[in-house]
């Protein structure tokens, strides 16, 4: 089986977020980058599927050369080779175009990625790639097993769970508990440097959406402690000050 896992290169979950250039650019100063946590689940499951029934796992990232350490980490975790499409990932559509363009003739049996990135949290790329390739796209996939050409998966829906069965190939937007994150082991780390990381020029595509400006949420205000016996006061404050009821 030939699996493609698309990964994002995103600020660590504990990174301090700030902006420059009149709030139009993310300030990456001193920020540590990681594999998108949801993508990391997808990758972990892909490696498990490969270990169980053979095949290959290719990771793909749309990004500039700065993302290579993140890509090599994916190789250390167990991907066999990697592709970096050399472009700034400007918006979901642009990224989906790049992925689809690479995947259309590459013969993947399965394309996996996180259900969303954790920087812009668009959650759209899997759907767009599905549309561009004319394949089903399912998200959020929380359990995934493959038997022959058929995939069995589970997905959380409003108020319950849904169990699906469908034929390969398709696109899966994944989240926990599809697998547990894998810590790269020493052997993986040492073999990562000899695995192939191919850099491809981006295909012609333009973003569908242009970013105007960022804005940070307002700083948290002070906390007012209200005595448990004083419900009246609480209601008054919620009404008049917080204006939430």
């Amino acid at each position: 089986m030939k699996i493609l896992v698309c990964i994002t290169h995103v600020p660590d979950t504990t990174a301090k977020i700030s902006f420059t250039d009149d709030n139009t650019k993310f300030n990456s100063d001193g920020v540590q980058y990681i594999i998108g946590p949801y993508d990391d689940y997808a990758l972990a499951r892909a490696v498990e599927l490969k270990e169980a029934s053979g095949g290959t796992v290719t990771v793909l990232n749309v990004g500039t050369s700065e993302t290579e350490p993140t890509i090599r980490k994916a190789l250390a975790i167990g991907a066999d080779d990697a592709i970096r499409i050399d472009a700034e990932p400007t918006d979901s559509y642009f990224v989906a175009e790049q992925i689809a363009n690479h995947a259309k003739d590459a013969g993947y049996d399965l394309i996996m990625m996180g259900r969303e990135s954790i920087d812009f949290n668009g959650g759209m790329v899997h759907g767009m790639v599905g549309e561009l390739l004319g394949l089903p796209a399912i998200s959020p996939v929380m359990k995934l097993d493959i038997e022959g050409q058929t995939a069995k998966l589970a997905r959380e829906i409003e108020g319950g769970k849904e169990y699906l069965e469908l034929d390969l190939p398709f696109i899966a937007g994944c989240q926990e508990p599809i697998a547990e994150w894998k810590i790269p082991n020493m052997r993986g780390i040492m073999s990562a440097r000899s695995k192939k990381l191919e850099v491809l020029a981006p295909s012609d595509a333009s973003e569908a959406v242009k970013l105007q400006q960022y804005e940070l949420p307002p700083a948290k205000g002070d906390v007012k402690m209200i005595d448990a016996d004083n419900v009246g006061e609480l209601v008054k404050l919620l009404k008049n000050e917080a204006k939430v009821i």
Partner: protein
Amino acid sequence: MSTTEKKFTAKGGAFLIEETPAQAVFTPEEWTEEQKMIAQTCKDFLEQEVYPKLDEIDDVKGNPELMPQLLDKSGELGLLGTSVPEEYEGFGMNFNTSMLVAEVIGAGYSFAVALSAHTGIGTLPILYYGTEDQKKKYLPKLATGEWKASYCLTEPDSGSDANAAKTKAVLTEDKKHYIINGQKMWITNGGFADIFIVFAKIDDDKNLSAFIIEKDFGGVTMNEEEKKMGIKGSSTRQVFFNDCKVPVENLLSERENGFKIAVNILNIGRIKLAASTIGASKGIIANASQYANERKQFGTSIGSFGAIKHKLAEMAARTYASESAAYRAGQNIDDAYEDMVAGGMDKTEAKLKSVEEFAIECAIMKVHGSETLDYVADEGVQTYGGMGFSADAPMDRSYRDARINRIFEGTNEINRMLTIDMLLKRAMKGKLDLMTPAMNVQKELTSIPDFGSDEDDSLFAKEKKVLSNLKKAGLMISGAAVQKFMQKLSHEQEILMNLADMLIEVYAAESALLRTEKLVGIKGEQACEQQINMSRLYLHRAVEIANKAGKEAIFAFAEGDEQRMMLLGLKRFTKIDPMNLKDVRRSIADHVLEKQAYEF
């Protein structure tokens, strides 16, 4: 570097008498992507497997299986085989990479002790002294964690005086086995070890021999777990050998070579221990700075108080010095190894010889790392106030677990004495010319002081002058002490402690300064503001300590004119321009508080 320029080669102990170019030191900022990934793996392992179970781990009686299970898991990741060559299923990493692993795992409390005892004193004797058969038999199992190892040197009546061990080995009549009898004490990993490296005397030998004993040989029993102040999750047992039958092929190295093995393995253990204390210190700094931001008193976070800032800055600066020095020495060991192998030396021998060359630095780092950690842990508790004393907050464990580091792998007293002893021995063997620079200092003392022109205003020009003077102070006092006591200097332990303190501080302060100088060369002054601050702050501390230690030594053995002259000399050699250290500390602390971590 131009081709005509000779490559600088560091020599053990030579830092006292020569200037090291900044370009020649390794700095932790130079880790490769691969090394960073290895460090991240160690960190992820602690976060996933160790931190959520700290209380269970510490209940070693209730969960005796937990620690070996954790070691198994770390073995699956390859963390037990970093130093073992690839032909024995390890990863053959260089020395500094194994230091990095020790550092990161060092923040793992009892788990760190178990891992380092297994990979260090448990595995290395076989790696460095084993026959090919022994290596083939044991190393792959140790590198993967299938077998766990322990190291049995200490006995009830033989601690610091290791060669006084009474455990006995007697050859059987058919000459096929040794029968071993004796009692070992404080054996880390004892409760679950499959392999015991045991030091014993054969017949009436004067010196120890070392044996590889498998638990299944029979005759190995043990007491209950020791009740301890800290590292409660680390298994520590008394181990008894009763007519334990050991095949002759399990003698390690040669008869009576045990003490040498013990010493050489401890050299490595000491500097690795320093690496691990750095990781523990960084963990405490992260916790303490976060708490200082969150805890409010008098309407503001306690981190805004100068008294707390003072602590955080000192914690960071001392850790920075320790870190700079440890990896400087680690790289020296790697470089020496490469040179020796290039010169045709056998790889195993080169591993040992390269560490032996820097044994002084290893002992220095053991002391500096463990005392820095104790300071950091103590101030960590203080920063937490009452919560520092609570067993529900992290400082309690950090504080208790820190303390052992000044005791094992040679107590800090033993290590302090060793630094001076080894330095003088190297001088006597002609490996280190202490004589010429000591005489030059004598001459300088009787000449008119060089007030120096302040022409050189390059970064650290003044600091370097201070350092070079500190070295002179050390040479002046040790030279005079050697002249006075000759062979009897070893009986003057108090003076040895003073001299060791001077030496340790010179090494730490110089290492911090060289690292910063190198960094400034790469990133520019502005980007290195806090490194510059920490180096300067640390240098002031080093001067204070050297001045105090120097005075005590002088008072202890010099009188009259000699005393007066040496005190004047000391004053001259420990002169440093005043600096507003309060402001320097505030700036460092503000940075630490902003990052909520030791992150520069």
